[in-house]
């Protein structure tokens, strides 16, 4: 009973703290956190795709762009209500995600990575080239999700989206589909021999994670009010990969915390100029070398051990 209640309590505490946090934040840090929700959704969905299903795609930012631009263009050109536009963005990202998943069916490992990277670069070029629709590198101004100038509603809306993403993708992983995706990652031929329709699940995981990337893109566009092809750059993709790796690529809440931590840290170190990227690179290398499950997972394990030691129960005293 007590053991089962523990995660629930830590979740409640974390949610309560994040909900109360804006009281102590100035406008700048509120903005930083509200932006970090975008990265959190991306890191969580990429962790599902790469960490659990083993599909190391570099097209994730492209799906964020598809979601963002679809929603933005629908709002600008057709004056569609923003929430409806975001839904359309999610749907189109899912659709293109399914197509990319299908095209990648026969590609494994580095070939899939290269294919998806090429797709992302092509999409970036298209956004730049199709100036009359997308405003190219100048950026597309899109209306906000909420009226007014406050970031507060975005902070809460984004936070709810992060929690919803974690809940939905977490539930998926706990279902039998989670087992099939991990089996797919471990060995596709063995998965097929075990009656798993690997083509179906590969397309499924691309569809679902692309949908969430599209959701992140929609939120981001209508929050910052401007979309540019810079969303799809390699450094942006690298940042999301770094966030997931630092947090824990096989742990969805870990990836979310990693994203928030890395983004906040990189802003806090802004005065350090380019050196902060060197620091980030070092952190990633050290994580890969010494804590492959991610720093957040490592920290959580340490914390659990420390609290157990302080209050030894007869069962764990031997450990």
């Amino acid at each position: 009973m007590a053991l089962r209640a523990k995660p629930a309590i830590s979740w409640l505490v974390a949610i309560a703290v994040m909900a109360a946090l804006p009281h102590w934040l100035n406008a700048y840090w509120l903005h930083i956190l509200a932006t970090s929700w975008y990265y959190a959704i991306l890191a969580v969905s990429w962790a599902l795709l790469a960490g659990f299903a083993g599909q190391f795609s570099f097209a994730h930012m492209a799906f964020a762009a598809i979601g963002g631009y679809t929603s933005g263009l629908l709002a600008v050109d057709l004056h569609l209500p923003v929430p409806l536009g975001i839904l359309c963005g999610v749907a189109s990202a899912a659709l293109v995600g399914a197509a990319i998943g299908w095209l990648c069916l026969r590609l494994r490992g580095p070939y899939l990575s290269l294919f998806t990277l090429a797709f992302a670069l092509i999409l970036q070029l298209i956004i730049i080239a199709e100036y009359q629709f997308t405003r190219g590198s100048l950026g597309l101004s899109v209306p906000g999700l909420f009226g007014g100038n406050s970031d507060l509603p975005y902070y809460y809306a984004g936070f709810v989206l992060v929690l919803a993403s974690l809940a939905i993708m977490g539930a998926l992983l706990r279902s039998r589909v989670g087992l099939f995706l991990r089996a797919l990652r471990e060995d596709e031929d063995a998965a097929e021999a075990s009656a798993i329709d690997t083509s179906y699940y590969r397309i499924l995981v691309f569809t679902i994670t692309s949908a969430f990337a599209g959701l992140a893109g929609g939120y981001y566009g209508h929050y910052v009010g401007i979309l540019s092809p810079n969303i799809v750059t390699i450094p942006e993709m690298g940042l999301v990969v770094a966030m997931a790796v630092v947090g824990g690529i096989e742990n969805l809440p870990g990836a979310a915390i990693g994203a928030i931590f890395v983004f906040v840290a990189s802003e806090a170190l802004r005065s350090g100029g380019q050196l902060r990227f060197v620091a980030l690179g070092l952190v990633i290398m050290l994580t890969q070398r010494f804590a492959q499950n991610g720093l957040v997972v490592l920290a959580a394990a340490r914390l659990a051990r420390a609290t157990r030691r302080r209050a030894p129960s007869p069962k764990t005293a031997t450990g």
Partner: protein
Amino acid sequence: MLLSAESVTKRFGGIRAVDDLTLTVEKGELVGLIGPNGSGKTTLINLMSGALVPDGGHVRIDGISMSGKAPHVFARSGVGRTFQIPRLFRRMSVLENLITPALALKRTYSRVEAEHKAHQVLAFLRLTHVAALEARALSGGQQKLLELGRALMLEPRLLLLDEPFAGVHPKLLDQVAERIEELSRTGYAIVLVDHNLDAVRGLVRRLVVMARGRTIADGAPDEVLRSVDVIEAYTGR
């Protein structure tokens, strides 16, 4: 007739790994499949389980052509297989390795039911004590057994076992042979690939010998082993 390969051919570049070969497996039959290195045994197993698509000929299950069907369809039609080099879900627990095929096979199966069945298979294979370990932590012989268990979770009618004795400790060898014998007695059809003539001949009632992609002998073990062709294939003339 449970499964039949009819004039199947598989080419890799210039070589015919399997060459116009016909083989039929009846319900409940235990067939030994032997042949020198590179004679096409593994390729034949891959053809019969859908992992490879034949360049010519057909594979039928219950008389129905499986042309163009993915391996998971073969698995759902009752064909379970192991690999020559074990291919487990290495970073999943032993128990998860077992429940995965059961849950993939039947949407109606609950996790509890699958785990119940997995524990029966673990007991049968004497692996209960490692149920919670990651598969990659098992010894080579235990991995072979777990792979057999994973195939059993499909409740197959036909088991294709590619060298189940390879790399297994002599002490465990008898145990593996015993398990296979027991499965055969309970009605599984089994195709058993092996190099080790002595291990196979005592176990099976039908022995098929392959050389250069073809079957060169097929019949009762003693009869087959006396035939000249077989000795030639093994000694390389």
